[in-house]
């Protein structure tokens, strides 16, 4: 039932929130940042797919959001290509 699905997603989101807070206290160094970003992406995906009903939307609508996501990913990759590949002494 629709309401049941919405409620389960809400519970899942709160669980992920608890997980992300917990993970930030683990002694695993920089992996914390990566895990937290991954959890944030998972939450965003759940909100998009179920709350925003992308599950039942047309392919065109999904493609539009996908374009924005891919473009942001491109920005991240190429920014990283600059900042992580600088010679020693800058970062």
């Amino acid at each position, binding site marked *: 039932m629709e309401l049941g699905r919405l409620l389960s997603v809400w519970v899942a989101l709160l669980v992920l929130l608890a997980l992300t807070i917990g993970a930030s206290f683990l002694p695993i160094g920089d992996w914390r940042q990566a895990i937290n970003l991954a959890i944030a992406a998972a939450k965003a995906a759940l909100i998009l797919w179920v709350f925003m009903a992308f599950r039942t939307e047309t392919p*065109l609508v999904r493609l539009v959001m996908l*374009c*924005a996501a891919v*473009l942001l990913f*491109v*920005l991240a990759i*190429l*920014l990283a*290509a*600059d*900042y*992580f*590949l*600088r*010679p020693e002494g800058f970062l």
Partner: protein
Amino acid sequence: MSEAGLTNAPSEGTAPRQTRAEAQSYLSDGNSLRSWLLTTDHKRIAILYLISITAFFAVAATAAALMRLELLTPNGDVLTAEGYNRAFTLHGVIMVWFFLIPSIPNVFGNFLIPLMIGARDLAFPRLNLASWYIFMAGGLFTLSALIFGGVDTGWTFYTPLSSHYANGNVVLALAAVFIAGWSSILTGINFIVTIHKLRAPGMTWGRLPLFVWTHYATALILVLATPVLAVTLLLVMAERVFGLGIFDPALGGDPLLFEHLFWFYSHPAVYIMVLPAMGVVSELVTAAAHKKLFGYWFVAYSSLAIATIGFLVWGHHMFVSGESMYASTIFSFLSLIVAVPSAIKVYNWTATLYKGSIALNAAFLFAMGFIGLFVMGGLTGLMLALLAIDVHVHDTYFVVAHFHYIMVGGAVTAFLGAVHFWWPKMFGRMYNEVWGRISAAFIFIGFNLTFFPQFLLGYMGMPRRYHVYPPEFQTLNVLSSAGASLLGIGYVLPLIYLFYSLRNGETAGDNPWHVTGLEWTVPSPPPTHNFEEAPVVVNGPYEYPLSHDSSIA
């Protein structure tokens, strides 16, 4: 070519004060100022934009004239250094955001897209009007910045000059561009939804004129790139107004981060300026040759390819700003790739012209000018994409010449070509063809005389944004300024003969050029609702020879 259409009664005379079509058109549908300022008709909004961008062009061209006047001599005698900085900043800001970006999309895109796809208006007509008002608000902020003394940061607003050291009305200018950006975004949303949802029955993607394809690609860039500019300028404003420094090296920030975010928008922005121009040229080339466009799908997909790859190349503006060598190599490679779809278009236009029966009217002269000048601009762009050359010519007049070949030789020339091609449709009048060709000649010759010497100057080392230079550069600078006066004449001429044609021009029929396209099947000028009933499209675009003037094939 200038024969009256089949639908006008001969007893009207060839140049009446008001033709019958005009009386029933969108131009006569309400004569009050209110009916124009509160219109939701895409055609009227296009005219509002046409008037505004022409005014902005005049302001920015005046700034350019001052600059070229200053550069006649090696010393600074017309302007101070500060004054010169303010002149080129004003020139850049207005030309980029208040002329080039809105020119073809907001005048011809607005006017023609609904007509070309068989719709009665854009998807969101009131949003369209809002776009114009937002644009004018941005323009007002720009003019205020000018009146209060100007800005000296360059149109690129690099930090920390813009965020920290510049005195002047930086926040006003930043706010102006921020506001104008929202006009762009709303236009992009309108175009995307219109093209997806308002095509007439039978108007499949494969039957769309290339003008529509390129405007679709442009709209994608408008919607996805402009917000990044908006937020970047907001960050600079926050630093100036509230002292919140993200780009401040003293706090550990990186001015290059500004450049990354700024060029992430501003490189795709140049494709916002050039893609619509390419769409215009596709239309002008098939119209002049009276021949089907060669390689329709190649040209259509190349528009999308340019938009996509155009998002991946921004780092080539920062090769000498401290960007990592590895990132620079990646950007250099991608910048070479982005030339491929543009080249595909040029080859297809050439192939279209081959064995066509070409009409050398003014519009086509502009289109030919575009092809030649765009190729030169593009080739020099490839040179700039190569790291070794860029290190030598970055921040010199070589770069200035390159982008003016694309922006002026390309985009502005195509804009004028569009004006000369669709003027009869928009206003129902033919202009004097001879004067049209004369202005095309003035513009082509004047343009080359102005900007070719700048390639040489830049290669020899003359830096850009300087109002003084070593005396050995004077000859080329004088040639360049002379060319600028010819160019100026070329721009003023159309204002005269086009305006004259509004009352005194011969009546244009529905299809004075005898070309394909749904816009040529309605009267000139079109009635407010464009089509009596929705057309049903059964043929492809560019199906020559035309069987009848009022069909699209």
